[in-house]
């Protein structure tokens, strides 16, 4: 485990962190909560940049249009946050609260859960469902990209060596929007077999916008674009939701999982999507 590791850096600011990361003499890596098994198994890393003391990375704020969550914020804080409200807040808090256990939630961070994505990662598909924007910083300079970019390209490939994910910006959706989250798990602390996050906005009785984001049953988080298209602009109803759920489930590339058969997971995922859409619709109406 981390056989070549010789040194830790403990930056106090984002600029310091990027400086250490960009260090050309050593193979560096960023570490936040440190729960990533992949990180621990990497025997080429020579120095770790520990960002747990960078105060300007741990916050949950709200401005007029966005909730802004520092990438170094433990997801436990998201789970218990009074500041996160409305449909976005609900989705973020529900998902965060179902991650692992209290002990793990105090280690896993909002950004860490995005920087290395596994099928069981819970926050990335939530960020997708909410059309989150990711603010990256390379020292002072920053760039903001849709979360889809990071998910498609994967953070280690997308980010520059000296660049970090600094903030997740989540649009504040208001009345007329509902969200839902569900996991197929055997116990509360379990690697998910299928995770579903949805957002649905109603305007003038029609579905204005819908997001269906899936992970765990797939190898990485995906949106069910065809199903979303099928629903957009339509009048919501039980039959339509069921048809969309079927379309969504059919569109998934289901990964291998020794815990349950492909057929079962697909069948249940469809049920989960249908129920999730129904729940989001109901909440949108409130």
């Amino acid at each position, binding site marked *: *485990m*981390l*056989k070549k*590791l*010789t*040194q*830790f850096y*403990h930056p106090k600011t984002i600029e310091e962190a990027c400086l250490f990361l960009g260090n050309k003499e050593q193979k560096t890596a960023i*570490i936040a*909560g*440190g*729960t990533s*098994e992949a990180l*621990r198994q990497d025997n080429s890393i020579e120095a*770790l940049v*520990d960002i*747990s*003391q960078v105060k300007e990375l741990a916050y949950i704020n709200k401005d007029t249009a966005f909730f802004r969550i520092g990438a170094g914020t*433990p997801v*436990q804080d998201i789970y*218990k946050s009074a500041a996160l409200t409305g449909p976005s807040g609900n989705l973020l808090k529900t998902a965060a*609260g179902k991650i*692992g*256990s*209290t*002990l*793990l939630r*105090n*280690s896993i961070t909002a950004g860490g859960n995005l920087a290395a994505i596994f099928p069981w990662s819970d926050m990335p598909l939530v960020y997708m469902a909410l059309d989150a924007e990711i603010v990256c910083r390379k020292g002072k300079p920053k760039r903001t990209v849709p979360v889809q970019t990071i998910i498609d390209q994967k953070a280690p490939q997308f980010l520059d060596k000296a660049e970090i994910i600094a903030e997740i910006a989540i649009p504040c959706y208001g009345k007329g929007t509902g969200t839902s989250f569900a996991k197929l798990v055997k116990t*509360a*602390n379990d690697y998910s077999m299928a995770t579903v996050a949805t957002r649905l906005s109603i305007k003038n009785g029609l579905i204005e916008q819908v997001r269906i984001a899936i992970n765990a049953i797939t190898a990485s988080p995906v949106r069910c674009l065809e199903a979303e298209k099928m629903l957009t602009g339509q009048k919501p109803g039980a039959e339509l939701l069921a048809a969309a759920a079927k379309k969504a489930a059919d569109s998934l590339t289901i990964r291998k999982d020794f815990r349950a058969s492909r057929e079962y997971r697909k069948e249940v995922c469809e049920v989960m999507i249908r129920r999730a859409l129904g729940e989001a619709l109901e909440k949108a109406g409130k």
Partner: protein
Amino acid sequence: MKLNTKINGKAFCLEIQPNATLMDVLRQAGMKSVKFGCGEGSCGSCAVMIDGRPRNSCITLAGCAEGAEILTVEGMGNPENPHVLQKAFVDTGSTQCGYCNPGSLIAAKALLDKNPNPTAEDVKDALDGNLCRCTGYVKRIDAVLQAAAESKKTTKSTRGKK
């Protein structure tokens, strides 16, 4: 490499391997209450408080605890002067083999530090990372609620050392 950290209120400067886990370092420093159960952050018997947060020390690199304040049950109380939670565990019969107790006590303390009026659901939520195979958890929930009630009763703070 050197690790500077505060354990149970005392400053330590330890010589450690860079890839050492916090669990191993704490045990080597004499905190034997920190237990090995799985080494993968699933059972919680290694849980310690790091800067006020209860975390699995077996998957935390010791190097990440530089400058941190760490609490283990040795710092919560002793048989002569036990923490209200330790006493509650004893009184309610929440201790059978005891192996998971230190981690559970840390998680319970973290809860009461933030929420002095927890419900049973709050307690179950806070202790959800501490697996126990002996007790079935029932008495443990009672213990934490009892400790919360005890803490409110006394006028001077019995919440023990931070």
